[in-house]
């Protein structure tokens, strides 16, 4: 339905092609989170890979930073309808994490867990093949606490709630188990190009 009197913003063709439906470009970097910002010292930080309840690999901050580092420039899309173009991240690809853990992915599903109790489900296929990383730098600087530092998951081709802040574990699960927002009305998968914002979209 056309809204009476609404003309909309003009956007250039390049930007328009890169914007999933219903999104608009922001130049700032909005902060959204369900609770207070946890403050995690890199001295206390660890990252674990689990298969079900079993820890199969673990890194402290120094060990993690000694893993192969990769840079990635991507557009990111928040379910609240903002998109930020050309964001530069640096961190460890999930491929390299699994390689360092010498782990053949045991299941097709994973949950990312965070220090604040947050979790989100992402299929293995969306984490591997160079698609996703655990990012420790944004725009060349350490990821700030508000944006999920010391480290956040980055799965840029899905809505940004999948890119869990303050991430501390990746857990393989037998089934596609729902995470925090997925249990609270948000879409199981979250593809911005198919506008999978909410359950059953």
């Amino acid at each position, binding site marked *: *339905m*056309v*809204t*009476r*009197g*609404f*003309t*909309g*913003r003009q956007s250039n063709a390049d930007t328009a092609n890169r914007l999933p*439906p*219903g999104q*608009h470009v*922001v130049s700032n970097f*909005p*902060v*959204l*989170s*369900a*609770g*207070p*910002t*946890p403050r995690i010292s890199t001295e206390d930080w660890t990252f674990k890979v689990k298969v079900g309840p079993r820890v199969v690999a673990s890194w402290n901050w120094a060990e993690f930073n000694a893993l192969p580092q990769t840079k990635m420039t991507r557009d990111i899309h*928040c379910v*609240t*309808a*903002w998109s930020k173009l050309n964001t530069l991240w640096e961190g460890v690809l999930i491929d390299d994490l699994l390689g360092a853990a010498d782990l053949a992915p045991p299941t097709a599903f994973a949950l990312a867990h965070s220090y*604040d*109790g947050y979790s989100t489900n992402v299929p293995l296929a969306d984490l591997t093949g160079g698609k996703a990383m655990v990012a420790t730098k944004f725009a060349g600087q350490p990821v700030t606490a*508000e944006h999920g530092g010391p480290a956040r998951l980055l799965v840029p081709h899905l809505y940004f709630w999948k890119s869990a802040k303050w991430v501390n574990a990746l857990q393989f699960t037998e089934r596609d188990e729902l995470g*925090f*927002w997925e*249990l*609270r*009305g948000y879409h199981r998968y979250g593809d911005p190009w198919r506008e999978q914002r*909410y*359950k*059953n979209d």
Partner: protein
Amino acid sequence: MHWQNATITRIEKLSPRVKSFFFRLPEPIAFRPGQHVLVRLTAPHGYRAQRSYSIASAPGKAQALELAIERLDDGEVSPFMHDSAQVGDEIELRGPIGGHFNWSPEDGGPVLFIGGGAGVVPFMSMLRHRAAIASQVPATLVFSARLREDLLFFDELSRLAAPDDGFRLVVTLTREAAAHSFRAGRIDAAFISGTVTGTKMPLRQVLICGSNPFVETVAKATIAAGIDATLIKTERYGV
């Protein structure tokens, strides 16, 4: 949950920057206090813009759905709503959205709500619902605004606090001197401690809503006041 063409039945100015829009929906939506709805605008050439806004009204099918919308000067949807939308216009709405930042009396108390400016909106839904069902669950609202004129819903909140039924209103102004029952200054740990002193039972939940800097500051202050971080839920505005 689908898009509906909702009709604006009334527009009311609440403060210099906030107006309430009342909608009649073809199919009323069932929601929990604290949830929001999406507002979608479509231009003739197909361009669309959508934003989510917290519901200010209490649940109940008989009621008009009220959205209190702050005008953001560099915004896209809020300037249209403030400057162009009129009573009788149809606007596309979808909801309810958000299964986290909710509170109803059955969730128990005491509960502490802390709202900055338009961040008070979801608490209006919660407090109106609490009053509508005559709940006596202890609830405190700390409402921080810049100036007296930014205290949207102040008269109604004062009325809700009048019966001494367990709801307490604490107002602080950050750019105006303390006067009448208003305090002055920003919320810090001492402010939070002072506010929760005298609460007979431990707090069950703290809900904080406002701009990101407001929420960040207040959440830190709340934790510094000795309140367990796991009790705190936040909602951050201003995208």
